[in-house]
Structures are given as structure tokens and as C-alpha cells.
């Protein structure tokens, strides 16, 4: 981060402040709506501590909605940051953990963990991490030998790996006979509903160091995007940076997958949108993705649990409903 000019810092503060305000607004909105009703004013009273701590609304907001909103913000931030890192490292604007099959790989690991009867943490998180690393290695092996990772070959290998992962998932699911099946299927579609504050804290403990690490490498990502020679000439160790970033982001993604299943397209939509608005400087994009991605998933989850008349739908359905058409649009734009 040698080229940190005052201009960047003031812009960083300005952008982060704006997105933080949006995130906070989304989180307050997210806490004020739910299946048992509510309202922004009473929620603000509860959040500011001006209400009876034994009241029902107090319990529901502090112990059901807030953990869920916090989880959505964390997961959204992770997935969108993961997308940004993969896009920079693979120099491909269409890269994303979900599309590349990294999420699918960790889902296989997580399902295997669930079927083996492991606990959610550390058992399932570990098998999910192993699964994501395995798919990452698989993709890199498939695309190695090409000096530049071409858009088409990378995307195609990703599609293949993803298809393979889906069929392995279907295979594992079809082996399962009992009632765990329902739970696995709901979880696969992306489920934020079982968040409790302890789990959210644990997840935050795993993810925040990753965010900081990635922010430290944000300038290196800028240089990598300019090309290997350029990056090498500034004295950064490409290999170390690349491996550190890949492993960190795979770890983050698998941690979120083991908690809430497959939530797609967050890692695609947010980095692109933010790049369009704020430009391609990663020192700005990393915090923007964390805050913006968080807001996106908080809002998608809010829609997922309030739109249906009865019950709720998985958040992954909403992110994909918005994300998939956007992906096609971006694909068309990038071809031009």
C-alpha cells in the first residue's frame, strides 16, 4: 500500500461511510419486519434499550431477528468479497465461488460431514473447507498449462466442476433415506434461519481476520490485474499473494457454506455493481464489497422471509432470482 494518497483516504472514508449507512438502514429494516409483525418505531425503541427487556418484541428482536440479520450481513460480505478476490486473481469478471464450483465443493464436504454425524463446528466446517480446497485445486489443475487463464476455458472448467459437484450432491442426497433429507435440501438452497448469536459470533471470529488480510492485499490485487510483469516489477511475491488470497477466500466461503448452505450470485452481483459505481481500485472495492454485499443479502433475506404468505423461502432463491438475469446481462455486455 505504497501509493496511498490523501485522495484515496478521503474517498475511502466517504464510500465506506455511505455504504455503512445503507447497511445499518438495511439491518434496522431487517430487524423491524418478520412473521410476527413489528414496526420500525417500536424496533428503534427496543434497539436503543428503551423497552421492557422481558417483553415479547424485545426477545424476538434481540434473539431471533438480530442474529439472523447479522448472519446475513456477514455471509453477504464474505460471498461478495470472495467473488471480488476470485475475479481479480483469475482476471475474469465472471468468476465467482458459486459459478466456479467452489461453493459446490464445500457443500459436498458439508453434506458428507452431516451424513457422518459430525457437529456443525468444527466438524462440518472442516469437511466443507476440505471440499472447497479440493475443487479449487481441481479447477487450477484443469486450467494449468495455459500461461494466461482464459475466460472461456476457466468458465468452462468451472461449469464442469459445478455440474460434477451437483451430481455428487444429488447422489449423496439420494442415498439419504430419512428425515435428514428435508433438512439437507432446505439447507442446500441457502438457509439463514437457524442463526443464534453464539454461532454468529463464532463465524465473525473466523471471518473478520480474513477480511483484514484481504484488505491488506488489496493493493497487490490492483497490481496483479495490471499483469504479472508489472506486479513483479513492484516487488510483490505473486505466488505468495495468490496462494494466500485463494486459500483465505476458499476458507471464508466454506465457513459460510457450512453454516447456511449454497447462496449463489451474491459474489457476482455486488462486485460488479460496485465496480461500475466506484471504479476498479481494490483498496476501495474491498471495504465496499464487505459493506455492500452485507446489505444485499440482508435485503434478500428480508424479502425471502416476508414475501411468502405462509412460512418462508430460502434466501438463495431470491439472490439467484435477482442474480441470474443480471449475470446474463453482464455476460452480454462483456462480449461486446
Amino acid at each position: 500500500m505504497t501509493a496511498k494518497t490523501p485522495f484515496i483516504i478521503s474517498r475511502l472514508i466517504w464510500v465506506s461511510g455511505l455504504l455503512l449507512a445503507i447497511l445499518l438502514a438495511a439491518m434496522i429494516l431487517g430487524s423491524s419486519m418478520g412473521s410476527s409483525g413489528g414496526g420500525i418505531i417500536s424496533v428503534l425503541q427496543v434497539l436503543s434499550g428503551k423497552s421492557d427487556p422481558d417483553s415479547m418484541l424485545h426477545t424476538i428482536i434481540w434473539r431471533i431477528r438480530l442474529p439472523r440479520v447479522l448472519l446475513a450481513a456477514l455471509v453477504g460480505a464474505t460471498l461478495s468479497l470472495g467473488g471480488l478476490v476470485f475475479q481479480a486473481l483469475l482476471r475474469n469478471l465472471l468468476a465467482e465461488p458459486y459459478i466456479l464450483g467452489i461453493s459446490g465443493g464445500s457443500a459436498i464436504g458439508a453434506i458428507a460431514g452431516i451424513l457422518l454425524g459430525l457437529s456443525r463446528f468444527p466438524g462440518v466446517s472442516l469437511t466443507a473447507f476440505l471440499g472447497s480446497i479440493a475443487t479449487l485445486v481441481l479447477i487450477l489443475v484443469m486450467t494449468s498449462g495455459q500461461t494466461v487463464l482464459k475466460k472461456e476455458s476457466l468458465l468452462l472448467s468451472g461449469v464442469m466442476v459445478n455440474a460434477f459437484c451437483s451430481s455428487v450432491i444429488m447422489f449423496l442426497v439420494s442415498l439419504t433415506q430419512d428425515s435428514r433429507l428435508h433438512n439437507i435440501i432446505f439447507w442446500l438452497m441457502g438457509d439463514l434461519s437457524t442463526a443464534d448469536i453464539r454461532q454468529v459470533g463464532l463465524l465473525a471470529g473466523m471471518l473478520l481476520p480474513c477480511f483484514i488480510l484481504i484488505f491488506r492485499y488489496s493493493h497487490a490485487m490492483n497490481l496483479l490485474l495490471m499483469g504479472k510483469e508489472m506486479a513483479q516489477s513492484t516487488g510483490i511475491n505473486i505466488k505468495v499473494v495468490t496462494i494466500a488470497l485463494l486459500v483465505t477466500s476458499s476458507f471464508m466461503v466454506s465457513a459460510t457454506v457450512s453454516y447456511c448452505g449454497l447462496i449463489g450470485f451474491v459474489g457476482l452481483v455486488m462486485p460488479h455493481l460496485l465496480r461500475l459505481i466506484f471504479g476498479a481500485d481494490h483498496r476501495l472495492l474491498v471495504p465496499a464489497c464487505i459493506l455492500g454485499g452485507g446489505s444485499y443479502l440482508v435485503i434478500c433475506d428480508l424479502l425471502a422471509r416476508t414475501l411468502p404468505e405462509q412460512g418462508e423461502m430460502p434466501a438463495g432463491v431470491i439472490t439467484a432470482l435477482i442474480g441470474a438475469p443480471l449475470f446474463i446481462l453482464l455476460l452480454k455486455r462483456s462480449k461486446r
Partner: protein
Amino acid sequence: MSLFESNFSPPQSRTKVRLIQKSVIIFWFSFLALFMCLIPRVAAGTFVDQLERQVTLPDDPQRVISLAPSITEIIYALEQENRLKGVTRHSDFPIQATKLPKIGSYVRLDLERIVALNPDLCIAIKDGNPKEVIDRLESFKIPVYVVNPRNLNTVLETIIEIGNILNADDKAETLLTNLHDRIQRVKSLISQDTYRPGVFFQIGISPIVSVGTDTFLHELIVLAGGENLADGKTPYPRFSREQVLALAPEIFIVTSMARQAVFERVKAEWRRWPSMPAVRNERIFLVDSNLFDRPSPRLVDGLELLIKLIHPELLK
């Protein structure tokens, strides 16, 4: 019930059957008495549920939430519906249950709605309710009693236990005696005939899915004097059309949550194979799946329906 009362055994053996019935009832009451003593009560208000967990329940629960359709049916059968403040989405029997507040489906419970209803007792079922939601409910200091009915006998035990925690022991006993009598009637009818026709019970249309040994349906088919052609270790085995034809079922029963039209289509497809005895003899039937897959008192209705389909000659 009328089904049995009007067509019951020939006159010459009637006294004998009455005697057997009497001894069975006496035996059953002594069993019941023994069972009531065995109901695990550690201290006042502390119970051990069917997962061997110690739970502290209110002495007289007034705001009960049922986390599965079968539990709703049991609570209604015990006439304790005034305590019931919330049910799952598919709790559709009796019809009044559909008017109660909904708390999501039994595999996808809406935690927020449950907590908002402020229950003093939730009754959950092990097979289906996600463990995470049960754990979280308990973190809100909401007592959860988990039942785990595995077969007809444990369903009867479950009725007694729920009756016990809802202070409806008398109702539960009456209900149990009634259910037990009806089961005994089926058993004594079946004992008159050693013939056990092969039954194929299709619970899934596409793919074709039937029921293995470790299911309520298998138990009911066997009790109703049939042979379950799909018995085996797999609880819900899949079949190809070829395998079904090779089994040559004499009676073919399709349970369906779907509409009559779907059944007609399935029936028409099987009719293309007249070599199958069930097709030749016109013994393909549609039954309501809710009578067979919910561990509730209505399983006995299902049993009575099955003997009517499998052994109509015994009821003449």
C-alpha cells in the same frame, strides 16, 4: 366401527370370541396399570421424553404448540384442543385445526412465530422436526417434549404420554381401550384365514416408491393379513416397473396426496399389464396417505380400511 359390528364372526363362535375379548381387555388394563406406574416421573413437573431427555413441564399447560400434524391429531383426539395455540401448516385433521395459527411446516418451523405465540409447552416429533430449532426453542426457556413413535405400540404409548402431560389421563385411557379393541378385532378376523395375499403399496408415483419393513405401513399391511412385497431393510425402496411386475402383486394400493386424476392416470398405466394379478382381478385401490403416514390414532382407521381392501371376504 360399524364395519365390524354388523359383520362380525359367525354365531357359533361368538361366545368364544367374547371370552377372548374379555380376557384381552383385562390383560390390556393390567398392562396399562403397569405402564402408568412406569411412566418416568422424576419429580413433580419433571418428565423424561421419548428421547430420554429430562424436561420440566408446567403442571397444567395452557398454551401448547404442536409441531407436527400427527401431534395435532392426538391432541384433538384427547379433546384437549382448548390448550392448543398453534399448529403446523399441514395440520388438516380435524378440519377445525386449520383455523389455528400456523407456525410453518413441520420440517421448516418458523421460530419467530412460535416464540411470538408465547407457548408454555411445545410437543415435537423426532422424525422431521429439525434438531437445531428444538435446541433454540429450549434456549428461549420454552419446554419441548419430544415424541418418537416407531410403530403402532409406541403410537399408543405416545397417546398415553401426551394425555399424561396434558392432564387428560382418563380420556387417553378411553381412547386407548377403543383403539386396542379395534386392533384386536382385526387380529381375530385375520386369524380365521391363513391366506396372505401379496400387497404392493405404492407411496411414490414417479419414481415408484414403496415401503420397507421398518415403517408404519408395513406393520399395518401385515396386521391386515397381507404380505408386503416390498419388505426389506430399506425404509422407502424404489422400484422399476419391471420389478413390480415380477413381484406379481395381487393387491395394488396407491396412496396419494395428489388428486383423483393422478390416480386414474397411474391406474391406467398399470392396466396395460393384465398379467399382473391385481390388474386381472380389478384390485387397484387409491387410499388417503394421511391415514398411513401420520403416527396418530387414525392409523387404526387405516388398518380397518386395509383389511377391507385385502380381505373383503372376511367381512361378509
